[in-house]
């Protein structure tokens, strides 16, 4: 984990409203795991005041050029333009100075590889699944990725996932790309076919809730990556906490999304509280 004062290598729109930013970050890839995140400072002036958390899409390095300089290591984030901060980010260019803190948090836990691995990503929730897919493929897993979105605009990086050797299934709410309907419908079908699969999911809370209910019903192990607003990213502000399973008024359990998470094993979370705090009803 390091506080990088660095610069942008590239910043491109990869699907309407979605951008991929490549940032120079020497030494970053050695320590980064799938599912971790960075705190990104949009600019030195205000507003916005606070950094914003972004999932790591991937890390890598540019080959050494003819000058014989060492390869340049980079980290890539993918973001959706939703507010003031991301609007400013979309206007940044190659060479612009930025600050980046990371890699942060606990990522996915994928130690062994017997059986199928099903990854479920909704919209911007696809981001942390790219590195995970790569790691799982390397371990010899069969990886299926269920990509969900409202429209075709929310589906990105399909070719890149496929290049890793991932089998992809696309569904959109409006049917503008792939199957029409919610991604969880596809998940139910896949779990019938691969009852011993393990599931990894990231996406909006209603999707995560539905994924969780399906996994509970099928006794399927599930890891989820959560998104919460946070100020510091290092466990100091205690602003990003979520309730842990078994949380009660008398015996409260608050877990820092930035430090314990952002990836959690589903059984360790209080899903009713999560659903309520994200305004999407309750989970079963």
């Amino acid at each position, binding site marked *: 984990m390091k506080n990088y004062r660095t610069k942008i290598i590239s910043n491109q729109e990869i699907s309407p409203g979605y951008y991929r930013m490549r940032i120079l970050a020497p030494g970053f890839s050695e320590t980064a795991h799938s599912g971790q995140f960075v705190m990104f400072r949009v600019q030195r002036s205000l507003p916005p005041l606070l950094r914003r958390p972004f999932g790591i899409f991937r890390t890598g390095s540019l080959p050494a050029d003819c000058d014989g300089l060492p390869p340049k290591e980079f980290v890539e984030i993918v973001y959706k333009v939703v507010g003031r901060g991301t609007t400013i980010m979309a206007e940044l260019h190659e060479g612009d100075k930025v*600050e980046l803190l990371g890699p942060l948090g606990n990522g996915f836990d994928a130690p062994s590889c017997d059986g199928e691995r099903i990854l479920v990503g909704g919209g911007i929730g696809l981001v942390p699944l790219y590195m995970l897919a790569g790691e799982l493929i390397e371990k010899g897993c069969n990886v299926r990725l269920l990509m969900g979105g409202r429209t075709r605009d929310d589906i990105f990086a399909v070719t890149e996932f496929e290049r890793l050797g991932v089998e992809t299934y696309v569904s959109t709410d409006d049917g503008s790309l792939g199957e029409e309907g919610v991604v969880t419908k596809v998940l139910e079908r896949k779990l019938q076919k691969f009852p011993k699969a393990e599931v990894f999911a990231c996406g909006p809370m209603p999707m995560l809730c539905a994924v969780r209910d399906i996994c509970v019903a099928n006794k399927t192990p599930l890891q989820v990556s959560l998104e919460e607003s946070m100020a510091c990213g290092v466990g100091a502000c205690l602003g990003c906490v979520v309730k842990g399973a078994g949380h009660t008024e008398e015996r409260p359990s608050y877990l820092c999304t930035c430090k314990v998470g952002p990836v959690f094993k589903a059984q360790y979370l209080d899903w009713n509280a999560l659903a309520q705090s994200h305004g999407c009803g309750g989970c079963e």
Partner: protein
Amino acid sequence: MSETTRTTVKKPSMAVEIAGIKLRNPVMPASGTFGYGEEYAPFLDLEKIGAIVTKGLSLKPKAGNPTPRIAETISGMLNAIGLQNVGIEAFIQHKMPFLRTLNTPVIANFFGNSLEEYGEVAKRLNDIPEIAAGELNISCPNVKQGGIVFGTDPKAASEVVALVRKHLQKPLIVKLTPNVTDITVVARAVEEAGADAISCINTITGMSVDIHTRKPRIANRTGGLSGPAIRPIAVRMVHQVVQTVSVPVIGIGGISRPMDALEFLIVGAKAVQVGTANFVDPSVIQTIIDGIEEFCIDEGIKDIHELIGSLRL
């Protein structure tokens, strides 16, 4: 062996003393923005900052408030964390072993829900020799007496300070809330009750509403506003308190750059605390220390005391 001769600019003396605690420089974190110190060890040398101020400690562990707990506002941040902390016992057992290894004064911020609890925590702090001082948070409601916030009532403030003063065998810093009509009244009350130093200001109560859901943006409805937005208010209040009391004052409120810290020192704060800015840049305290030093060199100031209270009126 001959020494290379080079022109070196003599560094200014940055050391200050507050209530008998010697600080190598006047910059420290504000409670609640620096965890228990260890969280920030990857980002700065904890032995180069003035002091470490812990997260607010209570007798029993405290879970804190429901979420959402934070919301960004224009140049500021609202928070209602609810003083979540591990409790004094876990602090001693799990957090002190790291802090003990550091050659930097550790100031324990603490609070209670009742007079008795304040007294109990103060007593426990006596058992930790490496704690240099206590910083008393009086911005809490007195649960047993109708929930009035100790720090908003000069009588209640005086009572809790006197009690803690009786129990605590260490220097006592009292942290004031700005949510009062006249901060000098409370400042005078806590000084008379035995405070060795005063730190101010704590956050300013605020509220923010999501216009689409029409709900408050934090679950607690209201929260404490911090960050650059509050700095002019903080500078004004520190100025007022400095004019009123004779004990040293630690200035807090929206400091994120060296020049911000200098404002507080010039109005008479003997030291400063950096809060929300730690969230934005985890090594900002070092940047501020370096910047103050540079300013002193540029201005020909040999000792930071030449700057403290040098306000020209």
